[in-house]
């Protein structure tokens, strides 16, 4: 039987009373559960292995930057093939210490997703076997999807700055 996010939240709350879980939602769209970074891996394993939940696939893992709160976050969208329920989870960490445990050992697909989040946001995934940049070149500076990102002036002698070219008359 497919569970709603509220039901899953209550279920998790019962299983982990000591963990500070928060159910949040915005004005539009779907709700999500926020989990503290230090408990993320433990809960991820529980989400996958518990017989009532069985979230066997990690559909998506995306990095998010909240410059106002000086936070970095990941959003994980889970899906259970047999049970049919889905769940959104957020893990938030401060920008100064952006360490989140890696879930690569739980869902293999997290490997590349986490590399991408590292590449774009500079979130460091502890325990990831091969945390390199994935889309940008290895020696790229900065994390492009952070809201305060300033592109580097030049890369390998190529000017990366966008300059408006005046339209000529001919």
């Amino acid at each position: 039987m497919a569970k709603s996010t509220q039901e899953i939240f209550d279920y998790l709350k019962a299983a982990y009373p000591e963990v500070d879980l928060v159910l949040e939602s915005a004005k539009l769209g779907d709700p999500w559960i926020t989990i503290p970074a230090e408990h993320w891996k433990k809960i991820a394993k529980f989400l996958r292995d518990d017989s009532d939940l069985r979230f066997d696939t990690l559909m998506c893992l995306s990095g998010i930057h909240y410059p106002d709160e000086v936070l970095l976050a990941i959003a994980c969208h889970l899906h259970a093939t047999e049970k049919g329920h889905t769940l959104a989870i957020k893990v938030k960490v401060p920008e100064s210490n952006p360490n989140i445990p890696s879930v690569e050992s739980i869902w293999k697909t997290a490997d590349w997703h986490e590399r991408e989040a590292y590449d774009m946001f500079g979130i460091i995934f502890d325990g990831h076997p091969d945390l390199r940049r994935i889309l940008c070149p290895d020696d790229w500076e900065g994390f492009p999807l952070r809201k305060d990102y300033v592109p580097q002036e030049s890369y390998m002698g190529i000017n990366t700055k966008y300059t408006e070219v005046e339209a000529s008359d001919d």
Partner: protein
Amino acid sequence: MIEIVQKGKSRPEMVINMGPQHPSTHGVLRLEVTLDGELVTHVRPHIGYLHRCFEKYGESVGDYGMVTPFTDRMDYVSAMNQEHGYVIAMERLLDIEVPERVEYIRVIMAELQRIASHLLAVGTFGLDLGAFTPFLYVFTEREKILDIFEKSSGARLLYNYMCIGGLMRDVDDDFKKDTEEFVRTFRPKITELQNLLTYNSIFIKRTAHIGVLPPKVALNYAASGPVLRGSGVKWDLRKNNPYSIYDRFDFDIPVGEGEVGTLGDCWDRYIVRVLEMEESCKIIEQALEAMPDEGDVQQNVPKRVRTKPGEIYARTETPRGELGYYIISDTSAKPYRIKARAPSFVNLSLLPAISRGSLMSDLVAIVGSIDIVLGEVDR
């Protein structure tokens, strides 16, 4: 001279760069392959050569509507499906109902695009294995689909046809006739393809038992689309989690059965695509029958959509698998964060797991059977 490394007692190995310019990496994928003779001992994919900053653009361009053309350019061989995924995500976020006729046209377009994309996939798969002729046969058919698209949208590859709340314009007058004609002439061509390629004994030898992906591993890697179904998992969002109006149609989900080899081998992934084309034909026929002839194709949505804060993760089934858009909106006219979960990206990440211990030629077959589009991998 060529460097052949011998480490310790192990056998000498050669590291070879397959790509980014190589005939069968389907674009600019680079595989760092470690070879022992012709035996592949390790593969390391390097991606990012086609990274065009889709997500950064999405956050920077003018408004939500202006993101649609960029979604086209992600998976450029199934642009309609990419647009469909995006507009569905936005409509779910904003809770917009679209007119009936729009839904039908969108579904027909998406299914035609699915056929076109699968045709390309099976054609180039044959090409990877050295069969040149089927490639041109399927391209003839693909051209006909592109002609239909061109008549309605004005473009042959990147359409920008769907928009939030409807379509850019109504379909061409001949649309119904053309599509019916196409479906009728297309069915015998599938049989032709089956005779020429699918049951060719050399083709079977090259694809059966190669690159076996067990269902458990496939799920753990979050594989989707024909890659997942090739492993025998009956999972298709159109059926299991219907979006748009897919719940109204009667169609099957073909899965791999290990007919000529092991379950989840290259041949199974291939045959799933071939059989899916037939299912798409069924959907198109039903949709054409039920489609209202008259009606508005634009819901009253402002050109610059204003939103409230919100979050949505919406997924649709593209020819390559599950395409997810994760959109965070705020009060401005631009998305705060937009992430595309590209099926090719995820499917490609399992390449090292299934290609270890195969031969060089098998590696080509495996990459072909995963059917990646680098535009979507790198976004």
